[in-house]
């Protein structure tokens, strides 16, 4: 048995550089890009929610 738990959504825009600086997070010593969100996806989701 093998089942998929999670897979990345296809992103319309990549490499735009809008993401926040990795080091401005809670840790300041254990920078972990995987904890971050995509700023575009977050922003677009917020726009949809606001509508």
């Amino acid at each position, binding site marked *: *048995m093998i089942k998929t*738990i999670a897979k*990345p959504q296809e992103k319309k825009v*990549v*490499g*735009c550089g809008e993401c926040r*600086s990795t080091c401005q997070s*809670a840790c300041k010593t254990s920078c972990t890009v*995987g904890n971050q969100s995509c700023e575009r996806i977050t922003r677009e989701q917020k726009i949809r929610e606001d509508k």
Partner: protein
Amino acid sequence: MIHVFSYRDKHYVYDTGSGSLHECDERTARYLRGEDVSLTEEELADIEALKREGLLFAPETDVRPVKSNEMKALCLHVCHDCNLRCKYCFADEGAYHAAREMMSIEVARKAIDFLIERSGSRRVLEVDFFGGEPLMNFDVVKETVSYAKAEAAKRGKKFLFTTTTNGLLLDDEKIAFLNEEMENVVLSLDGRKEVHDAVRKTVNGKGSFDAVIDKIKKFVKIRGDRHYYVRGTFTAKNLDFSRDVLFLADQGFESLSVEPVVTDIPDLAIREEHLPAIEREYERLCDEYIRREAEGRGFSFFHFHIDLEGGPCLQKRVSACGAGNEYFSVVPNGDLYPCHQFAGDAEWRMGSVLTGELDGSLREKFASSCLFTRKKCGDCFAKFICSGGCSANNYHFNGDIDEPYAVTCAMMKKRAECAMHVLASRKAREN
């Protein structure tokens, strides 16, 4: 590349190339590890289907990093002094191996100008008020926020501010200001009183727990649902740090981060021999984390977040942390360093916001540093999650920003596995 790992009685396969996470039974896990196990035709067909979908044994990316000369963020050291004398402080108890001093508003304004002028088309800029203890220079923090907002408005930009504080100077005025102006506030608190007090001392040598706990609680209560982190440090003295995380959660703090210390002080430093205990501790924390979440009294632990579905694009994931290229630290006299962990080290001085100079060769060194220049990361399953780790840690432990520190890597990998297990457990409950 795939990474097959087991957590308690669960078995997972993380596909590094696609960033997908799968759960499987023990036989499939053993088969995927290369053991001599016979699977049924149906089981083999499931594996082949995932391969065809590009979710298993997917080729790894050859995308290039986001390479831009646009600046995004500054860590503004508004105060190279501190009202605490924490034993493990990487910043020399706030002084950064130099005279204790405050940043003037003139230098702060120049720093804001410097960032805006070099931010190109980027609209959102970030400033972290850092120290030492930044609230010791509260007037400059306030004036800088006011100035930055006004300048940003003129240029069609927006600032997101963060403050990192030990909480000692929090009062009604400062709480109101931080809540109004800060996108995020990081409050330093190590956990249990005896753990906190053993290292986080006042100038007079007393433990500081009693002096900060009520202030931080008050701040968080007023903060409501806006971003904050109660952020602790664990050392070799409290390898049972899951108790500290849970203690903080029991105080009502819902957004937590507890980090391994960065120090070479022998009795505090995390060393390779501590790793088995630390890995067990992350598992203990993970088990309780999931249990509390299932009972509806969960909290957020920074390192157990992993966004495999909507996280950063691959270009970002291979781009390293951005220090020394898109992110800089500015110390009180206006000098620039790649990040706060390099501040005060003359070898890494990159320029000054007062003169506008910026060392192009050093910047290029950092801009060129990425996952692909960190050769040891090549065969690591977590490389697209950690992006090659912290340049400063790499340098301080191994003398090279591109040489990952094995102890940090081991902790990172364990946290990633725990985060994946948390994600799978959450999905199982939702279904």
